[in-house]
């Protein structure tokens, strides 16, 4: 693993060279004193893009100093740029009537007295200039000055905060993350008003220059874990970061596993809860779904709603989820194993019933099962990818026409339809879609083993699966914790949720502060 990282790391410098060649300037290049030259260079580098807005004007009373403001149309808040940058520069700068000022003095004055923008930064490198410009800042250039002011004026059209669609809740807050990193982090900060909530931002992706934010609560988070996360993020060297999923694959502990080892959520309250437990959230600009690490298996069976319901109900629901998870994974496989390998274990009346249904079915049971399971997967995929109105038609055709007709035509037995439907419904109770996906695949493995080796095969499958799962780590934390290793203290909020009286949230065993200390 290390050697792989090393190889990737070595290539970084070569890659930089490639990029520089493509962009057409060295990353170390600085601004030239000539405004014309600078503007020309910017225009050339951006390929004269239509959304690049450059307004040139004269600065100060003697109208001697040529100046320009540059921004990308649509990325900036037009109000802000218009009123507080360009208007100020054109109108308020008229009080400057001393023509003996050097461009340097002028620039400093403009930054300190004229630009009434909360954040202005002085930059000299061209690379930085582009980076600010392309992330929505307005750049102010003055002729003769080898620096530029970057005024934070980000804005433009963004999707507003809407209700969560994946993780719905009855009693909880009705907010979900949006595509904007700043909006997302602000949603969390509104919930944790502690100076210890820290956010570290950095840019990833050589071309996309995507901003990502690492959020954690200083003091609760384990420094080792934090360093590990930062280290892994720093090792990412790719051209594009399309969203949190591309980061996820880079920083995950184990790629060859069906289980999700990184948690994702669209709810700010879930992120808040996880931060308070000592986890780390990774926000990626452009993705409404941040990553939360480290993830444990049990976490995927917990929903936000769990903490808004009474503890008894929550415990009951969690048990139901685990049971349906097991049923989804093994239900179909056990049915096949019993019917085709161990019919002596089925109670006589039930066996006669199943035998009666199977009398006219022309296929072996394993084939019948795979046929039905695949049909179900096809239907599900068709329903998801279709436009919503068509999706309904798909389910009607699938459920009513295919299911009913297949049974009455004697191609599949109704017992098989019942089992497929029951496992399908059970799979919908698993709250997290990543876990559902994992089980969907593992189910086929179990069906195959059951069809070939019977209960014995299921035994082999389960042992292999458990062995694999136990060996998994998510950022150094055992994936099956708090069950393996068994941590008594964390059982209060694992399968069951004891009343809040006993569970004082926060501080899982992997956090800096341990419970009871």
């Amino acid at each position, binding site marked *: 693993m290390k050697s792989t990282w090393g190889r990737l790391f070595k290539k970084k410098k070569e890659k930089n060279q490639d990029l520089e060649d493509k962009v057409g300037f060295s990353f170390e290049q600085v601004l030239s004193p000539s405004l014309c030259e600078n503007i020309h260079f910017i225009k050339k580098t951006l390929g004269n893009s239509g959304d690049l807005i450059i307004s040139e004007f004269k600065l100060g009373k003697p109208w001697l100093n040529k100046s320009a403001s540059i921004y990308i149309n649509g990325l900036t808040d037009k109000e802000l740029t218009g009123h507080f940058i360009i208007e100020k520069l054109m109108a308020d700068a008229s009080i400057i009537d001393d023509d003996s000022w050097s461009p340097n003095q002028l620039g400093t004055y403009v930054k300190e007295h004229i630009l009434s923008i909360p954040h202005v930064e002085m930059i000299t490198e061209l690379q930085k200039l582009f980076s600010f410009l392309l992330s929505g800042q307005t750049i102010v250039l003055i002729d003769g000055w080898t620096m530029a002011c970057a005024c934070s004026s980000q804005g433009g059209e963004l999707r507003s905060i809407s209700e969560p669609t994946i993780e719905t809740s009855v009693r909880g807050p009705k907010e979900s993350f949006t595509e904007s990193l700043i909006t997302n982090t602000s949603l969390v900060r509104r919930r944790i008003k502690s100076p210890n909530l820290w956010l570290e931002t950095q840019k990833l992706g050589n071309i996309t220059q995507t901003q990502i934010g690492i959020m954690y609560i200083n003091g609760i988070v384990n420094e080792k874990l934090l360093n590990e996360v930062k280290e892994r993020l720093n090792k990412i060297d790719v051209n594009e970061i399309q969203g949190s999923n591309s980061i996820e694959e880079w920083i995950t502990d184990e790629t060859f596993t069906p289980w999700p080892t990184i948690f994702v959520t669209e709810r700010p309250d879930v992120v808040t809860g996880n931060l308070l437990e000592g986890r780390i959230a990774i926000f990626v600009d452009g993705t409404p779904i941040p990553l939360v690490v480290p993830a444990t298996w049990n976490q995927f069976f917990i929903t936000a709603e769990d903490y808004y319901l009474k503890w008894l109900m929550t415990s009951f629901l969690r048990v139901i989820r685990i049971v349906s998870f097991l049923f989804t994974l093994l239900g179909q496989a056990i049915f096949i194993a019993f*019917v*085709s*390998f161990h*019919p*002596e274990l089925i109670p*006589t009346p039930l*066996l*006669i*019933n*199943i*035998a*009666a*249904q*199977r*009398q006219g*079915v022309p296929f*072996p*049971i394993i084939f019948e099962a795979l046929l039905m399971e695949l049909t179900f997967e096809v239907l599900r995929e068709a329903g998801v990818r279709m436009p919503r109105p068509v999706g309904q038609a798909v389910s009607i055709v699938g459920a009513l026409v295919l299911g009913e007709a297949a049974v009455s035509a004697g191609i599949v037995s*109704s017992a098989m339809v019942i089992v497929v439907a029951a496992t399908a419904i059970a799979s919908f109770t698993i709250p997290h879609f990543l876990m559902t996906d994992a089980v969907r695949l593992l189910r086929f493995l179990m069906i195959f083993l059951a*069809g070939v*080796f*019977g209960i*014995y095969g299921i035994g*082999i499958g389960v042992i*292999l699966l458990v062995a694999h799962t136990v060996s998994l780590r998510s950022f150094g934390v055992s994936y099956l914790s708090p069950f393996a290793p068994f941590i008594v203290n964390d059982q209060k909020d694992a399968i069951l949720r004891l009343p809040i009286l006993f569970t004082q949230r926060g501080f899982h065993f992997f956090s800096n502060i341990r419970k009871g200390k």
Partner: protein
Amino acid sequence: MQRLYLFLILIFSLICLSGCWDNVELKELSIVSGIGIDKGGDSDENRYSTTVQIVNPSQVAGGQQGGKVQSAPVTSFTATGSTLKEALRKISHKVSSQLFFPHVQVMIIGEELAKEGILELFDLIERDPSFRVLFPIVIVRGHTAEDALKITTPLVPIPSMKIVDSLESSEKIWSEYPISRVDQIIPRLNKGSFSITGININGEVAIGNKTENTQQIYQTANLEIKGLALFKEGKIETWLENESARGVMWVKNQMEQTVVTLDCPKKKDAITIDILRAHSDIKINIKNEKPVINMTIVTLGSVSETQCNLPLEKNKTIIELEKQLSEEIKEEVLKTMKTAQDRKIDVFGFGNNINIEDKKYWKKIESTWEDEIFPETEININVLTTIRRTGMRINSYIE
């Protein structure tokens, strides 16, 4: 890489060393619900005649079966052979698919064979992994097992299941004849006597064989549980009927619920006592090198019917009834004991009690126990009864 190979080898051996179970499609199995064993011919080649009753699933299971011809819920086939297994295998000529034995409900033995001896029948059942040993055995009285497996039954479409259901429910509420399961019989085969419940075919077999039999309100041919066959050395010695059979249940502590009738002052057998609970306890004393059996039966009952006017509100009446009930039960048990002692059959398993009490003594008398000592043994019976309730009424409306 080495670890991967090791892993693959381990997985491979897991798969290869896993025994010999194989999958069978349900369609290729004929579910056998009952086995009948009869005496075959006189020659060794067809010593036994076996009959299997095979379930016809689509006729038994509920749900839609539209358009199909109504056929019998079960089918039976017979074949003869020198051993049971041979005879059973020979049936495959007649059946469409492989016989599947784990779901056998009942084993039926013809009386003729039972008279000649049944000791050899159970080796196959114990040895063959596809048999369970948890099904009951019954003896057909006066008919062959083949006949018994031909009789159609209403309500419960599978006749074998009907026999088991009747055995179970009657044992529970009437407690006259016990269920004799194979696993209980096998250990006793070589050790003295045992008992097996009997069934009777009422009506003609030819009529019972037709599905029309079940289409009638009153079945002209039906199966009835009747009698307890006492076996000695694997052969039927005698049959116990009704109350005599119930005596065995009292002694063997198998009594669950039953009904005992008592006498009114002027009318015989006019009061019914429901026995709600019964318990028996056997103590063996060895006096002068001779065993004495002391038995205590404790029962709890309630008055469930009176056909005469009894002052039930008085304690005295209840005490008198209790006394009468104790006497009645004692008489019943003694009567059974008498039969057993006369026939020299220790059907109650007292020998086992003596073995538990005094191992050395039992070793000494084991060989002579049934024939010499048991018939002479002194048996003391003590019955304690309590009548708890008189039902929803106290005194009857009868004046």
